[in-house]
């Protein structure tokens, strides 16, 4: 095997350390190098996905120590799927932001690029690591980058959002450490597979307390209500490519961490119901809050939280089909929400106004961007035949399988709320009286158009022919639920 999972982390790290030097050689290095690295990550993803399709899952040992002694990186169909998704989206977001960064008002571009790249790399790290403490480290990498990026514009509101994020993020890391501490004292190991193996021997009381700490800490990362106060602020204040990254990459990593801990490490009853209830509450309150937002990015942020809520519900249902639906929705949410943030930021960029009212009749100025925004809105509501429909459909079917009729009605009622506010925005874009006829000052550059069109293409193609992607998601869902296989494969060397 030429390419190993560790390349995911090493390549960005080398780039991050080298960028301060490279900028001295060529001033555009800071903008180009991350692109190369992120593209390399995409290559890695495809290589690894191919590899695991042929040879089964990979558990790479680091520093020469087999799991559970050393840290291991695990690429199963599940983590591989998420890593692929994250790296592709990371690259597309970089592509989108390539020219965007010229307009950065804040610090230097190189800072931005390093932080952005490491945020994506850290998210991949969270996904592929097999070690709970290593996951903590990666969560902190993502966290630190995210705090800094939130405040990157150094505006009054940006710093405020960054501070809130940091405050809550600080809680998350503290509680996560407490959880890890309790688990370590009980099992004497940090490897997630081995923890899972030893979990039945852990006293129930300790198990549950550790679980509570994990749930709160990772709930913060996964934007679960009421732990998500930071999220709308951070999403709305960060530079737009970063907002897209938050929605498409960071929240995915957060949900992954929660799911991995809950599904693989612990064997506690009641977690599923907990996820379902909290997911529903999260979704409901986020969508309710979204409906009366005046700020476009803030509205999108609440909408993202709502989608995460739906993902959590679906994981909470817990059947194979539900997990499948959840993963599908995760993919859709990442793609669609990045498209929405990308398109939305061009509106803001042109009107220089974050309010929704500023969008009146903007489709005349930015026809293509408006089209993408409308497409994204339709897709995220779950309007067939776009990709969002299929994920929602499967989630509903899985809920019906378990006879959760009120859950289904609830989800659909919330969807109506969602539809209302997206329709308002799209209505403003297309059908409201425009204020003045000045041509757009900032038309989307070609790279941004390529990025957005590729996402739009995905939405349409997967919507019309979902079978293209469904086998991969099915494999991923199977891999997530097959806990014994995960444990055995990783610990096989030892036994």
């Amino acid at each position: 095997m030429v390419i190993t999972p560790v390349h995911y982390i090493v390549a960005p790290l080398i780039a991050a350390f080298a960028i301060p030097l490279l900028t001295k050689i060529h001033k555009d290095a800071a903008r180009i190098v991350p692109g190369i690295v992120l593209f390399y990550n995409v290559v890695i993803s495809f290589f690894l996905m191919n590899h695991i399709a042929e040879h089964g899952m990979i558990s790479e040992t680091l520093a020469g120590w087999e799991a559970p002694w050393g840290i291991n990186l695990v690429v199963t169909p599940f983590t591989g799927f998420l890593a692929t998704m994250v790296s592709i989206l990371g690259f597309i977001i970089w592509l989108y932001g390539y020219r965007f960064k010229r307009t950065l008002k804040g610090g230097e571009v190189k800072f931005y690029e390093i932080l952005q790249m490491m945020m994506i790399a850290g998210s991949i790290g969270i996904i592929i690591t097999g070690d709970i403490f290593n996951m903590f480290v990666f969560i902190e990498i993502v966290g630190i980058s995210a705090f800094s990026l939130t405040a990157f514009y150094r505006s009054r509101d940006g710093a405020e959002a960054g501070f809130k994020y940091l405050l809550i993020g600080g809680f998350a890391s503290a509680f996560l450490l407490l959880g890890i501490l309790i688990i370590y004292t009980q099992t004497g190991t940090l490897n997630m597979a081995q923890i899972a193996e030893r979990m039945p021997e852990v006293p129930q009381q300790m198990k549950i307390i550790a679980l509570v700490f994990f749930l709160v800490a990772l709930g913060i990362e996964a934007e679960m209500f009421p732990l998500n106060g930071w999220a709308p602020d951070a999403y709305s204040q960060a530079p737009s490519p970063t907002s897209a990254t938050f929605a498409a990459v960071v929240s995915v990593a957060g949900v992954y961490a929660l799911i991995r801990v809950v599904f693989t490490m612990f064997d506690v009853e009641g977690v599923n119901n907990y996820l379902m209830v909290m997911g529903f509450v999260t979704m409901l309150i986020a969508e309710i809050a979204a409906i009366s937002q005046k700020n476009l990015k803030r509205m999108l942020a609440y909408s993202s939280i709502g989608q995460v809520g739906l993902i959590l519900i679906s994981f909470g249902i817990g059947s194979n089909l539900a997990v499948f639906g959840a993963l599908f929705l995760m993919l859709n949410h990442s793609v669609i929400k990045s498209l929405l943030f990308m398109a939305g930021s061009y509106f803001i960029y042109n009107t220089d106004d974050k309010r929704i009212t500023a969008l009146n009749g903007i489709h005349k100025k930015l026809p293509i961007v408006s089209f993408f925004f409308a497409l994204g809105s339709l897709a995220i509501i779950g309007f067939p035949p776009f990709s969002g429909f299929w994920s929602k459909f499967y989630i509903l079917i899985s809920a019906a399988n378990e006879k959760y009729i009120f859950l289904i009605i609830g989800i659909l009622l919330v969807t109506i709320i969602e539809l209302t506010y997206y329709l308002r925005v799209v209505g403003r874009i297309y059908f409201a009286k425009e204020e003045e006829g000045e041509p757009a000052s900032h038309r989307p550059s070609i790279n941004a158009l390529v990025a957005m069109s590729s996402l739009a293409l995905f939405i349409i193609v997967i919507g019309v022919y979902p079978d293209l992607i469904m086998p991969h998601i099915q494999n991923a869902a199977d891999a997530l639920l097959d806990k014994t296989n995960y444990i055995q494969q990783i610990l096989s060397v030892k036994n």
Partner: protein
Amino acid sequence: MMDFQTLFEQNIEIITIAVYGTAIALIVIGLYAVLMKKHLVKIVIGLSIMDAGIHLLFVAVGYISGGTAPIFSPGSENAATTMVDPVPQALVLTAIVIGFAVTALALSLVIRLYKHHHTANIDQLNSLKW
């Protein structure tokens, strides 16, 4: 002269209460500062205190009665059985550095906020809401 191990074992309860009590006290004090203090710097200090409490817990649970530092200094090459758990100490090292990084970043944000708001009262930082 009483050796350390017996002393430890005799007073195990007091030591437990003292160590855990300190750790819990630190966590609780930090939490209180974060939740009640209005000054941003105090909140950041609170976070640090909370972290410190957790780090103390880490080191404390790694302790083994009568154990020595897990260093094979000349003359104690085979003392592995009497050594304390090295892993929590290694973890704490990482955790401390991360805590430091977070604190540094928090302080920089406080400076930035102070520049904009001319105040460090957290109650006045609510221009983003609802």
